[in-house]
């Protein structure tokens, strides 16, 4: 063995090989992108309408799709059980509107009601999944149907039948059961979408102030040292909040929407800075998964895209899209949360459990507990995702709003190139974009091609389920290839202890 040369396992493949791998890894995404493009050309839709519709839908559903990531980290596959989180949200929303709470306060009440329910449901689902390890996905799917049954029992029979409820706005004329549709107009509709930037600034300031105060109290009670960093954070936030009082700035902040022409450069700046930071951190030794070329490429790409926004045609197009501020901040926040979680002990434990439960257990990690926490988090996030969805739609079908979200969210994630065992924020966002793009375009394309919008409708349903089936099959296939790969070590002989255990069993 060569002592001088350190072992580096970077693959020195040729460019063509790397391109091939890149295309192969993203095959689902590429196929879907081509499909979207084709459908778009055929449909002859206005690009402006399509674009603004896509962004509306990302705001509506992005959060729910991102809620799927944590169970994937923990090796529990795609969580079809998020339906149960959605059910918690719907129960809470019904209670809120029934009691005539409205506006942002009403929404917060719905959150306060839904979250404990989601925690409980998530805990129970997690417990169940621990009893059927390896079959979480099918269990989640069936559990969704089961939960739907209970939900129907609650809404059709118990409410009005057992629980006294008479309000004719919601209750079916006979006095038992909830009406088919619940209108949120004037109560919860747009309560999150319409939050103004200035309120968000205030919110941020209050949160940071409370945290700083907490730190200060701990410091005074000598539980924790108060560092300069803490002051700096508080000062920066305070200054930002102070700036909002300047009339010149203030007048822009009463908006609840931001034009894409503002948001896009912010996003690009974020991408560029992030890659610069990676370059800086990896300047001496390259961590695994870091590629200098890729980082530089991303920075250049961000620059090019920014340049493109000055092309008049594109500029007009981009200017036509307005983004609701809070939903996108929440989506960004969830992305940050997912990433942050991976950098905690809990997140690392989840990854370990996801990779090998045997190793995790042998290293003293409580496998079952970690899995339950992952399910609780996912269910709560899915529940919040459903709240965001409902307030944006503004009316919900009591018995149908939650039904498909499991499948749709999973399909969207898979379209983004994720698999049962690996998923990232990026894949979730790309997936949700492409999936909805097809959803918007397909009916029109169907009408153009076959003279019937329903054909497009059938097509998109077929595609969404097809994507799930295809991805699952391809995942199984890839795993099989990997098993047959000679590079992977042989299965080692079974230990005498196991042989003995068999013997004991047989003798028994």
């Amino acid at each position, binding site marked *: 063995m060569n*002592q001088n040369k350190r072992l580096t396992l970077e693959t020195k493949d040729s460019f063509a090989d790397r391109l091939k791998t890149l295309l192969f890894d993203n095959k689902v995404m590429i196929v879907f992108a081509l499909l979207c493009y084709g459908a778009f050309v055929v449909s002859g839709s206005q690009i402006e309408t399509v674009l603004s519709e896509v962004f509306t839908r990302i705001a509506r559903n992005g959060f729910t799709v991102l809620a799927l990531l944590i169970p994937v980290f923990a090796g529990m596959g795609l969580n079809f059980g998020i339906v149960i989180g959605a059910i918690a949200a719907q129960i809470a929303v019904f209670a809120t509107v029934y009691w005539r709470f409205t506006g942002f306060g009403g929404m917060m009440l719905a959150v306060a009601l839904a979250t404990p329910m989601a925690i409980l449901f998530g805990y129970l689902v997690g417990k169940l999944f621990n009893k059927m390890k390896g079959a979480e996905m099918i269990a989640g799917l069936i559990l969704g149907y089961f939960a739907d049954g209970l939900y129907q029992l609650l809404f059709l029979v118990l409410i009005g039948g057992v629980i006294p409820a008479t309000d004719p706005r919601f209750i079916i004329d006979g006095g038992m059961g909830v009406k088919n549709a619940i209108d949120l107009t004037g109560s919860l509709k747009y309560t999150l979408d319409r939050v103004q930037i200035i309120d968000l600034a205030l919110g941020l300031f209050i949160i940071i102030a409370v945290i700083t105060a907490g730190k200060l109290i701990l410091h005074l009670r000598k539980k924790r040292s108060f560092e300069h960093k803490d002051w700096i954070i508080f000062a920066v936030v305070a200054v930002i909040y102070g700036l909002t009082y300047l009339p010149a700035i203030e007048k822009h902040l009463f908006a609840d929407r931001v034009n894409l022409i503002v948001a896009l450069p912010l996003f690009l700046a974020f991408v560029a800075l992030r890659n610069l930071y990676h370059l800086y951190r990896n300047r001496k*030794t390259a961590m695994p998964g870091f590629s200098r070329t890729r980082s530089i490429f991303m920075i250049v790409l961000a620059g090019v895209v920014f340049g493109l926004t000055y092309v008049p045609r594109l500029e007009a197009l981009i200017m036509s899209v307005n983004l609701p501020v809070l939903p996108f901040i929440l989506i960004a926040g969830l992305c940050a949360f997912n990433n942050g979680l991976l950098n905690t002990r809990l997140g690392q*434990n989840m990854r*370990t459990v996801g990779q090998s439960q045997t190793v995790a257990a*042998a290293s003293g990690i409580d496998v079952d507990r970690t899995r339950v926490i992952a399910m609780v988090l996912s269910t709560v996030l899915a529940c919040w995702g459903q709240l965001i969805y409902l307030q944006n739609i503004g009316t919900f079908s009591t018995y149908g709003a939650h039904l498909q979200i499991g499948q749709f969210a999973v399909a969207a994630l898979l379209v983004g190139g994720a698999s049962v065992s690996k998923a990232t924020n990026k894949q979730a966002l790309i997936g949700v974009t492409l999936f909805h793009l097809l959803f918007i375009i397909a009916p029109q394309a169907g009408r153009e091609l076959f003279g019937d919008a329903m054909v497009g409708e059938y097509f998109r349903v077929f595609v969404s389920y097809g994507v799930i089936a295809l991805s699952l099959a391809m995942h199984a296939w890839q795993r099989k290839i990997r098993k047959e790969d000679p590079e992977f070590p042989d299965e080692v002989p079974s230990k*005498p202890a196991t042989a003995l255990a068999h013997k004991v069993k*047989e003798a028994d």
Partner: protein
Amino acid sequence: METPYLLSMDNITKEYFGNRVLKNVSLKIKPGEIHALMGENGAGKSTLMNVLFGMPVIHQTGGFEGQVQLEGKVIRIQDPQGAMKYGIGMVHQEFMLIPDFTVTENIKVGREIGRSSILPLMDRVFGRDLDHMEWEKMSTDSRKALDSIGMMNIEEYAKVAGMPIGFQQFVEIAREIDKTGIKLLVFDEPTAVLTESEADRLLEIMRLIASRGIAIIFITHRLDEVMEVADSLTILRDGEFIARKDVVETDLVEIAQLMIGRSVEKLVDDSAEDTRRIDDDRIALELINYRVDMPGEKVRQINVKIREGEIFGFGGLAGQGKIGIHNGIQGLFETEGSVIVHGEKLDLSKRGEALRKDIAFVSEDRRGVGLLLGESIERNIIFSAMQVKNEFLKGRFIDRKKSRQHVEAMIKLLDIRCTGPEQTVGSLSGGNQQKVCLARALTLKPNILMVAEPTRGIDIGAKKLVLEYLRKINLEEGTTIVVISSELAELRSICDRIAIVSEGKISAVLAPDASDADYGLAMSGLSREDVSA
């Protein structure tokens, strides 16, 4: 109480369901000593280690007797984490590594260094769950651990996937070294999966670790490695303590003898006159450069000629490849090389080829491969003959009368204890299941019968009957019989010749009355010549 020993396990006795697997076994190790723990499969090495690590399998089956002392203090280890706290670590034979993690992540798994969360009070509510991971500190630690075993050329941030097996083993070792206060390391057959140079490197590292005062228990069946690296050794046999020796006082031959050493109990009454005509020119089965890709029982290269009419045995330790031999011929796993039956080459790519050439099998995995557990005894016995030879059929349907007659005769012949031919096989005892397997193989009227682990999990009476019956059909029908067994005693009592398989190759073909030392050496892949050299 002052003691020179770091660890001493005294008079350990352990029963599994009334089956004594350890009887008054003792094990003593001094600090900085490399101590080899030796014995055949089933000698009790693994059980002893399970006791040491407080594995759940021990507690769930009623604990053990005897006491464990660490540095003179009696300790009770309740679980593997407890063992870790006492500074006892293990380098596993099957690697406990996560391929997609980096070396650092693997070394620190479950013991990550964290800094409390940036948000106040979070650690109150969530414990250490939300600690922020300090990867830089962890990399430094990993680097230190890797350097300390001389592994300067493993990058601490490289992924484990794709590393050579040997390197993975070293990462495992680094993980154990990184645990603070490690006093005792158990190496469980560490060299089994390594190449020769990697194994040499490993032994070097073991010496390095021992030189720092860490005691090592080295479980292995490779005698030469023991002689090379160990200071002392303990030999177990059938769950009993046989000897503790210093390596300088002993030699390979003695160790081999002690490991095997048991008088050959005659399991079979062989008073019948041997009228067989065995001839070196008449070969029933010949294997040429034969390889089988069976996971866990890989056959690497076997050349052997089995003569017509003889009983030929394949012995050796578990995982060395003897089980692969018949599974390959049966067509269950990929093979290479030639299998020649009575001068005719077998085309193993065709399923059922061996059966059509009148070779019958009794599988070692009778519940998995051998039997249809939910089916009746009758169906199990006639199944293969029906499939392969179209026997017991009237047109396309089963000839019930003929099949019933045959099965009843078989039940009588082999003394299968059952309520009748209709009883399901799953409800029979192990011994009777084995007889059903045998009955099915015999129904094929084979020319060559391959029997794997004929007596596994069956009681002594049934054992004798099965072995005697094998001998009987060999004598009376002239059937060539190949026995594959982990139990040397049974091979030695019925076979004419025994091939010992080690690391997928035949290390020696021995006569049943060859010395224990010869068998012991063959099992660890050595021969007399190696010893004297």
